[in-house]
């Protein structure tokens, strides 16, 4: 399991990247996908996911399509044009961060 405080800042990036790779996805699908990709190491709870999705939508980075599954509504989220370029930027930023961290945290030879 990866600690929550490490995940906190990267949640948006994860969501944006998933949407950019998979087109449109609904909430539950995102949590399952993350769990699958991380081989169970990242358990994305809906408590963490939905506030972020709503925030991204309010900012105009993602948009919603609604479909009816039986009696209930399913909301599919997908990237807007703005969100697409932003998503790439966020992912680049993150790799940059990981690279930097790998230098910083690299064990120093004795």
């Amino acid at each position, binding site marked *: 399991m990866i600690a929550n405080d490490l995940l906190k800042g990267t949640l948006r990036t994860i969501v944006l990247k998933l949407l950019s790779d998979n087109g449109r996805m609904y909430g539950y699908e995102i949590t399952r996908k993350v769990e699958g990709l991380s081989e169970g190491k990242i358990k994305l709870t809906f408590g963490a996911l939905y506030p972020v999705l709503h*925030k991204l939508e309010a900012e105009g980075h993602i948009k919603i399509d609604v479909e009816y599954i*039986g009696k209930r509504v399913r909301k599919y989220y997908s990237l807007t044009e703005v969100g697409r370029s932003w998503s790439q930027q966020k992912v680049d930023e993150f790799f940059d961060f990981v690279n930097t961290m790998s230098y910083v945290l690299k064990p120093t030879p004795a």
Partner: protein
Amino acid sequence: MIAAIIDNNMDRIKADLVNRGLTFDRLLDDILDHVCCMVEEQMVAGENFELSYKHVLGTIGDKRLPEIQHQTLLLLNKNFQLMKNFTYLFGLTAALIAILGAFFKRMHWPGAGILITAGIVLVIFVFLPLYFVINYREQAEKKNPLYAIVGFLTLAFLLAGAIFKIQHWPGAGHIIEASLVILIIGFIPLYVVNAFQRAGKSKLRLPYIVMLLIGIAIVSLLYNVNMSKNQLNIYRDEAIKNEFRVDNVQERTAQFMSYINDTTYVDKKEAVTEINIQAASLQIMLDEMKDGMLSYIKQAGARVEDIRKIDNRNAGRNAIYNSGKGREFTTVATEYKEMLEGLVEDPVTMSQIEDHLDFINKIWSLEFGSGDFRNDPLIKSYYKLTYASRGIALSEYVAISTLIHNQK
């Protein structure tokens, strides 16, 4: 098949979610779908609906839904974010203004009082209310607003007490006492109850309580740096004693004066009368300074017992220092002492007189130079005036009685 069972129970699931506090429609749609997916997954694995649903509800818990909704709404509410940023920026500015004021005060630059007051007033009336409102709104489980209100009152009173104390405004003591009362009977019990309720649930709000304790420490320090009540009482008692002695001694002097016209003392009459007149004019100057202090605090004619309670450092500064009367008094008192030196021949008597007039060198001239009068509490300044008055009266008595007795 599975989808149909879930659909049949849809109203029930929705009602359950709403009952658990999920009222924001847009989020409700998301969570409803999410929960259905979770149930569906378990049913696909072979569980029946009831068990699956129960299990899913168990993982959600009772309090998470309102919390999630709260977080979502907060993230969405831009005004709230703006307000939050504004509040912290504002608190920072106000604190910087107050610190700058403290620095000005240290350097004795003008405007220190205004800066400190402005900083603290902004903190009390703008930053703290906003801070507590935000804090309250950010809490997922709505708690009793009493906690925020009492916290605000405690801090507001502590800060107000501090500013009153620094600015030497009357009533500082009462405000600090009030804040300590609120703290002890309000904030601390509430905090303890709250801590017990939260025990095991989440970490206590340690930074908050630490901040508060630091605040209390600073204010109590301010409170104690100022003169304690005991000390003020000592000054008051000494002032009363001095005034009593002055009355007694002057009565005795008046007896001498009543038979100065007797022919026996004819060649001493001029010297004795001069001493008497000089001493009287010095006493008048002291009385004027006392009256000046009392009228400054709008208590003209008050008794010493009553003015102890009023700690106003500006009174002494105004009536003794700024008015120039203190300096004038020192000059005239020095002349008086020189006059006595010329009239009294006996060195033992003269050293006695010098003892009585030691205030001219010890208390007055020294402390006018270093500006001590400018910072004394009212009762201490008053005490100094009675001390001088006693010295004048005693030296007058000793000088006159010596002159008269030597005649015999």
